């Protein structure tokens, strides 16, 4: 009896691993024989548009890295001492990877992929086509970061950025952790994207990465780099509708989208004080709440209540703006900036008829029975939906000083 029980336990355990009888045992590979792919770029094929081109960026092993740094980099793709790429094409992603495998001395391992970048053309064609392998593959981590290469092929972006001194995967990692410093874009995990793509009424946004040629002064908010160098930038969102890329949202629109989806974490709002000088407000809280008004089963309007609280962290004038009148002015100015971003996002969404603002999903959660009635017509309802906006704005603190330096001296 005990032996039977034991056999049963072992059989169940092995059976639950999801393998066929012949492949019960997991794949075995020594760690030093693996090629750790960090970034995968997916594009349409360069010769045949039906093909798929993949560009894989990996960290070379220590000894290879030493060889490369000594000027012995060989093969098709050695770029820098600390970075290498592989390029391959095939009818499917799987085929392309297998072809790349044949050219590699190590086993390609996708378990450490950190970011997947979909090329502009490929995303416009059909995102779902490329998502299947990524979603299904057992090696891929479900917390992979998904990006779209803005206006260019992912492979081109990877190859050009590989010429930078910074390793692309480090930059992407930086994006994934610090996207919320300005809240002008976002971060999208594979598992989130898989869920969102299944939701037919929800517009999907994917962070866009742009490659900018730096030839002079760096634009505001970007780190300066050497002249003539290509610099990567997290640049708003790519907007996906019905599984295809339809447009890009710029930073202001993306900020509005983040506000309405309650994904605005931190950022700066720059306004002018009553004396015409710049004041910088550091947002510490920005929350939105949607309420819906129905007439019978028909939705009439959406009211957005937004609360924005910030701290004054910089002012250029020498005046005391921490008075009741001046503060009310600052509250109003701050609210206007927020309204502008939100209205911009609403207008963008309506123009593209893509519900990236989360209205449909929110109605489904709050009014599931009514949602059943409006769901079928949502595409026609959404562009004409009346949206009312109410922003409550406050400046909460001024940090260590309330009055600017030298103000008292001037008095």
């Amino acid at each position: 009896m005990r032996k039977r029980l034991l056999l049963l336990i072992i059989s169940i355990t092995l059976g639950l691993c999801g393998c066929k009888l012949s492949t019960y045992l997991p794949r075995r590979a020594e760690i030093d024989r693996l090629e750790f792919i960090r970034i995968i770029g997916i594009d349409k094929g360069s010769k045949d548009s039906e093909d798929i081109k993949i560009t894989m960026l990996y960290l070379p092993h220590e000894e290879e890295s030493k060889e490369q740094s000594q000027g012995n980099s060989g093969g098709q793709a050695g770029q820098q001492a600390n970075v290498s790429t592989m390029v391959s094409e095939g009818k499917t992603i799987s085929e392309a990877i297998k072809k790349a495998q044949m050219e590699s001395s190590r086993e390609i391992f996708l378990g450490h992929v950190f970011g997947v970048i979909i090329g502009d053309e490929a995303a416009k064609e059909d995102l779902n086509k490329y998502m299947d392998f990524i979603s299904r593959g057992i090696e891929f981590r479900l917390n992979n970061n998904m990006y779209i290469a803005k206006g260019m092929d992912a492979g081109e972006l990877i190859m050009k950025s590989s010429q930078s001194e910074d390793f692309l995967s480090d930059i992407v990692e930086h994006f994934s952790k610090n996207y919320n410093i300005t809240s002008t874009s976002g971060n999208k995990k594979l598992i989130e994207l898989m869920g969102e793509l299944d939701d037919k009424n929800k517009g999907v946004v994917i962070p866009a990465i742009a490659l900018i040629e730096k030839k002079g002064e760096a634009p505001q908010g970007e780190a300066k780099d050497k002249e003539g160098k290509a610099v990567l930038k997290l640049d708003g969102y790519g907007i996906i509708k019905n599984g295809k890329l339809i447009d890009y949202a710029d930073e202001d629109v993306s900020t509005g989208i983040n506000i309405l989806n309650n994904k605005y974490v931190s950022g700066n709002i720059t306004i002018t004080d009553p004396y015409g000088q710049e004041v910088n407000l550091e947002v510490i809280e920005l929350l939105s709440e949607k309420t819906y008004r129905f007439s019978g089963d028909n939705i009439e309007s959406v009211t957005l209540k937004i609360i924005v609280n910030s701290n004054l962290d910089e002012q250029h004038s020498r005046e005391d703006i921490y008075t009741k009148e001046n503060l009310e002015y600052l509250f109003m100015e701050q609210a206007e900036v927020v309204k502008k971003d939100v209205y911009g996002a609403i207008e963008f969404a309506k123009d593209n008829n893509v519900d990236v603002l989360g209205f449909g999903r929110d109605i489904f959660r709050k009014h599931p029975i009514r949602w059943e009635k409006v769901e079928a017509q949502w595409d026609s309802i959404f562009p004409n939906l009346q949206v009312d906006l109410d922003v409550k704005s406050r400046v909460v603190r001024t940090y260590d000083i309330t009055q600017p330096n030298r103000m008292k001296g001037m008095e």
Partner: protein
Amino acid sequence: MNFRKLFKKKSKDKTSLSTANLKDTLGSSDDVVFSDFHIGVSGRVDMTLLYIDGMVNTNLINDFVLKPLLTVEQFTKLHKSKDVVNQIEEGRLYFASHKVVKTIDDCTQDVIMGNVAIIFDDINTAIIFDVKGYDKRSITEPSGENVLKGAKDTFIEVLRTNTAQVRRKVSTSNLRIKQLVVGRQTLTHIAIVYIEGLTNKELVDEVINRISSLDIDEVVSIGFIEEYIVDNKITAFPLIASTERTDKFCANIISGRVGVLIDGLPIGLIIPGVLNQFLQAPEDYSQNFIVSSAIRVMRFGLMFVTLLLPGLYISVITFHQEMIPTDLALAIAASEAGVPFPTFVEVMMMLIAFEILIEAGIRLPRTIGNAVSILGALVVGEAAVSAKLVSPGVVIIIALAGIATFTMPNQDLSNALRLWRFLLVIFSSIAGLVGLSVGSLLLLFHLCTIETFGVPYLIPFVSHEGTEYKDTIFRFPLYLNKYRPDELKVQNKRRQR
């Protein structure tokens, strides 16, 4: 062990108590001393002194037995052996520990145990005087169970000294010490120690039955008792706790367990032994309960480290590389580069090397043992890494698992864990985490099947009545620990008010 069985083949006249028969029984051993002498001025009462040289205190014989018998008038004027025996029985010799025996078996047994016998052939009687005087080791500090805040005395090889130590610590009049003789050749005295009215009587009877039914040649180590009396013989895990510390032994007796002391062995056995017990150290009760609890938690964790870490390393490095952070994966890959063996072989090599070092350290004298440790750990380890025979990662993992092994309070448990570690490494090398899980399930299954003297081995983790967790992973304050362990079915469950 029925001592009479040894002599059942002798004819009736051969079993009568006489010097000649005793000479036949004890043979011509040079250390057996027969000495004839006579009492009285005319030497009318014949006697024979019998003892084993080296086992008696001859001063005691001379001053307190022979001298009074040969010089005190009370004895010298006697004419019959019977009168001499009567006088001694009435206490005229001023020797506290004496008894009269009438059979050759009793006489022989007492003489072998280090007593002296005065034999009166004409009335087939002997008087036994307790004059044991063999050399014994003094009580020393524990060598294998070190303690900072606690009693330093340990058991020694003399049973009576050990029982006396227990008596000193457990002074209740209810303490019972039942003595049995086991071993056809060694005739080893074994003491069963328990507290009357507290310890489960069925448990006591069971222990006595199992030990008294042993029919073996010798008892020269605890395995001769332990292996014969445990329920589940096919297991590496200890089912009976053993200790050289008297305080630990006594604490267990007071908890309601049965103790066994074996003459000639400086170790006490505690019955039954369950897993939780082997993870408790006596010092846990000397320290602050919060500190003890933290150490206990760490100890339980380290048990899993000992058991699972090498297998987990193989699983992750060979099968599930996606589980570790990329930077760590690259660092390990770099360290593995150039090593010609698969990770499994590396781990096995290092585990075996570790076992060799332990064995060498135990067998060699202490001073050389330390040198072996240094040589093995530092020189050979460093050289193996430099020569790319093993990777630094493997050395670190095996060192961690090895050090974790040494934190186990019980050496027998530590040995079992080390053995199972090998099995889990093999399972891991076949199927990664699936294999490790299967191996761990097998281990759990095995542990669940073990019972020791009617007590489940995993108690209180497998069945309990709620109060037992107070002395498991966490050590609750002693004032909250009001009851004795449920599984022992003690007669008096309450430990304190």
